[in-house]
Each structure stands twice: as C-alpha cells, then as structure tokens.
C-alpha cells in the first residue's frame, strides 16, 4: 500500500511519513502541491492524505486534480479544523468520516486508511 502525504507543514508530514514507515506502510510526502501532482503522475498511490488548508491550492482542489490523474486513488483529509467551512467542505468532499483533525492519532489514521482501501 502506497500513501501520498501532502501538507504545507513539512516537519509534520515528514515525521508522519517516518512513523508510517516504521509501521511498514510506504508513505511519500511533499509540502508542495505541484510536486504532489507530479509525484502522482509518476507513481501510483493507493491513498492520498491531504491537508485541507494549504497555500497555492487547497486540499479539495488538489483532490480533484489528482482524481483526474488517478481515478482509483482514495483520499483522506487532514484539517487544523480552522473554520466551519473548512471542516464542512472537507467532510463533504472526502465522504462521510474521511477526515481527521490535527493533532493526529496515528493508529486512527492507519485504521481509516485500511478501511477506505479495503
């Protein structure tokens, strides 16, 4: 299972990728949305974990673009729960329950990833 992690908080996403790797889950990360699109074009990922609020392009828009490249890709959103709109749009776009508020519980993250990919 390959996971693409996209969040503008590089330190957070790097540590998360490393923790997933320690649990034998292959995760690649980037803090840049353009690079994320490029990575998705080059390699197939099962799940994309996207931050909702990012500079240049928000997670929802990024999801739409990634879906064009990889229609089978599953998505999971992360949110700092910054506002109602943020929360609602994230929840709606991702589907029921496919969002997680920061800070994360890694075990919950893994469980949800497994659920949406199973």
């Amino acid at each position: 299972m390959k996971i693409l992690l996209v969040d503008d908080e590089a330190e957070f996403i790097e540590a998360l990728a490393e923790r997933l790797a320690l649990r034998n889950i292959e995760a690649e990360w980037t803090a840049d949305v353009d690079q994320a699109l490029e990575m998705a074009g080059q390699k197939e990922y099962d799940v994309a974990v996207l931050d909702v609020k990012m500079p240049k392009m928000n997670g929802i828009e990024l999801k739409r673009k990634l879906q064009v490249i990889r229609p089978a890709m599953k998505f999971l959103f992360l949110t700092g729960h910054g506002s109602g709109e943020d929360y609602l749009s994230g929840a709606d776009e991702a589907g029921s329950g496919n969002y997680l508020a920061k800070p994360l519980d890694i075990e919950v993250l893994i469980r949800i990833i497994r659920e949406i990919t199973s």
Partner: protein
Amino acid sequence: MKIKLARLKPAFWGHKDHASSLRKDALNFKALWYRTVFFTSIAAVVPLLFLATIDYNVTKRAAESEIMLRTGRLVSNTRRTISFFLEERKAALDFIAHDYSLEDLRDHRQLASLLAHLKATFGGFSDLGIIDMAGDQIAYWGPFGLEGKNYGIQPWFRNVVEQGYYISDIFLGYRKVPHLVIAVKKPLPDNRFYIIRAAIDTDRFCRILAQMKVEGNGDVFLVNREGILQTPSRFHGDIMGRLDLEIPPQAPATRVYQCRNARGRPLIIGYRYIAGTPLILMVIKEKQRLMSPWHQTKSRIIWFLGFSVFVILLVVTSSATYLVSRLYEADKQRLASLQQMQYANKMASIGRLAAGIAHEINNPLAIIAEKAGLIKDLFQIRGQYQNDRRLLSLADSIMNSVSRCATITRRLLRFARNDDSRPEPAAVGQVVEEVLGFLNKEAQYRGLDIEVDIPDQLPPIVTFRSRLQQILLNIINNAFAAVPDCGTIVIKARDTGSGNIEIQIRDNGAGIAAENIGRIFEPFFSTKTDRGGTGLGLSITYNLVQELGGSIRVESRVGEGTAFTVSLPKKIDSSGENVKNENLACR
C-alpha cells in the same frame, strides 16, 4: 400609598436599572414627556382660555349694554309721561286763555267752575289765578287766599312775560307746600296781556314715579338744575333735599352713563332734561345687582372652564404617558435588537478568532505530537532506548499534554463553530458537557457541586446546536454567579412525552426578588449593573429559546435558589424561525 404612587409612575420615568453605557443613544423620555405635555397642553388650553376670555368680555359688554339700553328706555318712557302731564295741563290753560275773555275769568264763579272742571278732567290742579301786567293777582280761586298778591318781582313772572309760558320747578312758595306752577301769557290788543296761573300738586308726580318698578335696587326721581330733589328718592335724599350726586351735564336726548357713588359702588345713571322745564328726570340703578345673573353665569362658566382644563390636562398627560411609554418600549426593543446584533457579531468574531487561533495552534501541536510520536516509535519499534523507561515516560508526557491541548482547541472550535445554517441532531448531555467543560476549573476552584442528571437514553433533539449551547451557557453562567462558594447546581433533562425535551438548571443561590421576577427577561433589566451586568443575557436567552421554538420559565425563592426550565421541541420547524407569541405566556 408610596407603593401605589410608584405603580402609577411610568417605566420610562427612571431607567437606572439599565446599563447606562448601553443607553447612550436612547432618548431622554422624561424630557420628551415634559415637552409633549407642555406643548400639547398649551395647544389645547390656550385657545380655550382665549375663547373663554373673549366670551367673558363680549358677554360682559352685552350685559352692560343691555342694562344701559333698558335704563335709557325707562328714562325716555318716564320723560314722555311727565312731559305729557305737564304739556296737557299747559294746553288746558292755553285753551282757557283763548276761549274765555278776561272779564269772564275775573268772575270768581266762572274761575271756580273752571278749576272744578280742570280738577275733574285732568287732575292735579290745586288753584287757579289771573295776574295782570303789573304782577297783581287780580282774580284767584283756590284754598290759599292769594288774591291781591303781587308776583311782579318773581323770576317766573319775567319768564312768562318773555317766553309766553312758564313751568316752574317744585317749590314751597307762600303756601309752604311743595308744588309747581304753570303760567300762560294771554296777549291783548294794545300790547297788553294777562297771565293765567295754576298750581299743580307734586303728589301726582310722586305717585307716577313711585309706581314705577325699577330693577337693580333702582331709584327714579326728578331733580332741578341746582341739584334739589323735586320728588322723593329711595336712596338719594328726601324731597327738597340736595342730591348726593353730581348733576349730569345738559344733553338734548336721553343719556346713560356709569359712575361710582361716595361708597365706591358702581351705578348706572340714566337722565333726561325735560324740555321747557327746569326739571331733570334721573334713573339710578346699582350695577352689581343688575349684573348678578351674569355673575352667576360667569361663575358656572369658570367652573366649567376649570373642569374642562382639568379634563384636557388629564387626557394630555395620559396620552403623553401612553405614547412616550410606547416609544420607550419600542426604543428599548430597538436597542435590545441592536445590542443583540452587536453581541452576535461579537460572538461570531470571537468564534472566528478562536477558530483561527485553534488552527494556528493545532498545526504546531500536530508537529509536536508527530515528533514525540516518532521519538517513541524509534524507542519502541527500533528498540533503541526501549528499556529507558524515563525517556519513554517523557515522550508519553509530551503526547498526553498535546492531547490535552488538542482537546481544548477542539472544544473551543466546536463551540465557536457558528454553523447555524441548518438544524442538526444534538445530544443534550453532550452539549451540557461541552458547556461545563469551560466552567469546570471555576467549579473546582470554588468547590461547587455540579450534578448532571441527564439519562443516556434521552433522545437527541434536532435543533440549532450553537444556539442551544449559548442558551445553556448563559443560564449556567447565571447559576455560577448566583451560588456562593461550595454551592450546588443541578442540571436535569427529561423527555416530557409531548414532543418536548425539558432541561432544568437549578441552583441554591440567592434567588430573585418577587418584584424582579416578572422583569428578568426584559432587555436591559439587570440587578448587576454595578458589576458590569448589561441586562441582555437573559433577554438574549429568551429570544434564542423562542427561535428554537421553545419556552423558558423561572421559579425562584429568595434565599432558597432559582430554577430555569427550558422546554425545546425534539425537532425544530424546518424554517427554524418560530413565532414568538406562544412564549409570552411562559414568562
């Protein structure tokens, strides 16, 4: 009595219980009331008083004019009577002078016969005499034996010679009895003449004048030009006495005027100089007597005017009080709406601020959590330092602290989230727990006993969650303020079985005084203005409950505590806007 008067005082009279800072843009209702009452009263009363004054003067002048007219008529009529009396007798003497020769008249029997006829026909004659050119009375018939008397030096004799006739004033004469004389000159050839002279009793005048009924304590009499009374007067002296008033100036017609007597009493005087005689007819009336009917009417009009002014002032005052009260209530509602809007905006701003802060904090928290998690993973999964319990416990401590911070920020976010676009299911117990989450620390510090008795099986209600949170936070905050340290607050919820869920927050605080309990939901009503109370908390709560289609009621006993009970429908109307009327009964 004080309490009764206080009840009459309108609410706007003193609004000290309102937070003064919130009333800056409010009108000065007391001054407005004063201005309204003043100007409306002026507008209503001044024309009335103006008309009353005009009416007073017009009716007074009309009454006076009527009295003067009546007096003038009386003088004219009486003058005609007296003139006729004298003219009639003068004409009788003229007739005798022309119809009888001097020789006939010098015959005593003829003279006696004529006097008898005059007495019988006209009356008033007491004697009859013939006077020659030298003034000697050459023939006389009457009771006084005046034959041979000489009148040559008498002024009246000269007047007869010059004018052809003469009517004297009333005098005593040789006989010492009041009488007047009528004399007629009979010219003869060769410039000779003789005079027929008759004495007339004054009793006849006195009877004529005494028979007259003069209103207003009136008096009617004759006076000569020297001011000597010619007939008796009721109030101004006896016959041949001097009149106590000034003789009015000569005038060709009847005159009526006003003056005051020696005692200062106003009089109406009518007079007429009787032509061809030295007599003046005078009618004197007391003005006050004559004006008494008008004075009575005037008194009634003044009473009526006073009553009318009183009624006008009463109506003006009541109307002004009603209108200003309505204005005051409307202004209060307007200010309340404004304040509630400001409050809602403030809450929204706080919500946005809280959300922004929470988001900003959550990201670094997420980094801390992931870094600490990574450390722990490295220790545990890679086996490095897996036996160093202290390092593992430090990592756990960091993660636990992060978890606590996350709980706080999530709670803050949930509360600040102003998602009122649509109703959503809300578990009452959960909402109460969230609200209490903000107050737990204070409860701990003050030793408050917070009992929550909400059954797990209580069905969630479909409502606007944030408004429900706001309602509960306001009431629970009030309970916190009401209870002393170590006090008790009980929060219960139950399904009423009639489609409503009832939430009760009961405290054992100071309670609310009976006179205030009916006003606690009014905007700006606060007993805590000195402690920063705005008087809007419960007003906003009341409105929020209405918006959720529910009702709120309060029970309180001073010294025992207060219970607020909020009843909400299990499912709010789809519009989310509920009519407010039903809740008025629940106050």
